[in-house]
C-alpha cells in the first residue's frame, strides 16, 4: 500500500478560494443538469453528425475552466457560451472546407418521409441562417433560454439578441408559409 498526504496539492484555503469553490456543484452534477440543453442546442445548430464532437469539446473545455468559476455564476449561461463558441468553430471550419450544411435527410432519417418533414425542413433552414440568428433561434426554441442568457451566450447586448432572434424568425417565416 502507498499512502499519499497530498503535500504537492494542498487543500485550498483562504477566503478567496472558498468563495470560488464553495458554491460549485461537483462537475458530474453540472454535466447531468446541462447535458440535454447543450445537446439540443448543438443538434439544432451544427446537426447530429457534428453534435457529439462539439458536445465533448464543450464539456472538456468547461471542465478546464470549472474550478475558476465564481460562486453564484449562472452555470447554464456559462456552458451555453462555450457551446455557442464550439458551434461557431464548427461552422467556420465547414465554411473553409466549403462543405454544405447537412441536408434534411441527414437530420433524422426516421422522419424524412413522415408528416414531420415540414418541421425538419424548418430546422435545416435554421442551420442555414447567419451565425448570430441561428444561435439565437436555437438557444430560444431548443434550449429554452431567456433573452438575457441568449445575449450572454452569444456575447452581445440583450437588445441585439432580441433583434437577431426577430431577424431569424422573419427569414424562417418563408419556410412555414410555403
Amino acid at each position, binding site marked *: *500500500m*502507498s*499512502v*499519499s*498526504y*497530498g503535500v504537492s*496539492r494542498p*487543500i*485550498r484555503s483562504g477566503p478567496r478560494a*472558498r468563495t470560488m*469553490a*464553495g458554491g*460549485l*456543484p*461537483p*462537475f*458530474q*452534477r453540472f*454535466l*447531468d443538469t446541462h*447535458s*440535454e440543453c*447543450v*445537446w*439540443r442546442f448543438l*443538434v*439544432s445548430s451544427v446537426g447530429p453528425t457534428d*453534435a*457529439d464532437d462539439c*458536445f*465533448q469539446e464543450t*464539456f*472538456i473545455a468547461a*471542465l*478546464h475552466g*470549472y*474550478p475558476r468559476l465564481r460562486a453564484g455564476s449562472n452555470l447554464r449561461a456559462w456552458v451555453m457560451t462555450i457551446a455557442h463558441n464550439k458551434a461557431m468553430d464548427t461552422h467556420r471550419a465547414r465554411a473553409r472546407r466549403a462543405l454544405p450544411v447537412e441536408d434534411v435527410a441527414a437530420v*433524422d432519417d426516421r*422522419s424524412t418521409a413522415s408528416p*414531420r418533414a*415540414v*418541421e*425538419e425542413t*424548418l*430546422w435545416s433552414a*435554421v442551420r442555414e441562417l447567419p451565425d448570430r440568428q441561428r444561435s439565437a*433561434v436555437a438557444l430560444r*426554441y*431548443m434550449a429554452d433560454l431567456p433573452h438575457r442568457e441568449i445575449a450572454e451566450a452569444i456575447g452581445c447586448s440583450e437588445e441585439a439578441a432580441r433583434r437577431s432572434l*426577430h*431577424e431569424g*424568425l*422573419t427569414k*424562417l*417565416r418563408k419556410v*412555414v*408559409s410555403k
Partner: protein
Amino acid sequence: MTTVTDTELGKLEQALRRGRRARSGERETAAAAAERVSSRIASEGLADITYAPVDSPFGTLLAAATSKGLVRLAFPEEHVDAVLGGLARRISPRIIEAPASFDAVRRELDEYFDGSRRAFELEQDWTLMSAFGRKVLGATYDIPYGGVLSYAEVAAEAGSPRGSRAAGNALGSNPIPIVVPCHRVLRSGGNLGGYGGGLDRKRYLLNLEGALPDGR
C-alpha cells in the same frame, strides 16, 4: 425588414417546437453523450476526483479517489450530494463518476468481507485528514487484523498520551473507514466505544476479524 404578424409568428414558433418534439429520443441521446464525456474525462485523467458506488454487506458505499488513491469511503446513509459537495469544497469540484476505475477497490473490499483478505494494498490519499488525524489514523493503520487497541493506547502511539478524547474525535472523522481500521480501537476495559458508521457495524467488523471471541 418585413413585419411578422403575431399569427404568423405564433405559427412559426409552434412549428419550431413541434420540430423539437419530433426528436423524441433526444433525452436518451443527450444522456449517452454525457456518459461518453464522463468516461473520456476519467480515462484521460482530467478530473481531480473520481467516484463510484461500491457494494458491501452494509449496503452501497460511495468510494472517491484522487490521482493518488482512495480519499473517501462513505457509508450508505451519508447523502451522495453531501459527500461530493464536501469533496468539491475541500479538494476540487472537478469530480466525475467513473465506475471502471474502482475495480481494485471493489475486489479488495469483496475479499476483505469474505474473510480472504487481511490487509488492504490499495493506494490511498490521506489529504482529508488533519495533521493530528494522520498520526492517530497512522497508528490505527498499524493495528494488525484481529487486533485491538484502546483510545488511550492509540493516543500514546500518536504522541499525545493524554489525548484519548482528541484521538476519539480523529477516529470519528476517519474519511476512509474499514480500509483505515478505526473499528479496531475500543475503550479501555473492552467497551466498544463509538463508531461513525454505527456500533452494529463496528461489532460486525470486529467479529469478521475474530477480534471479539466472547461475542460482545
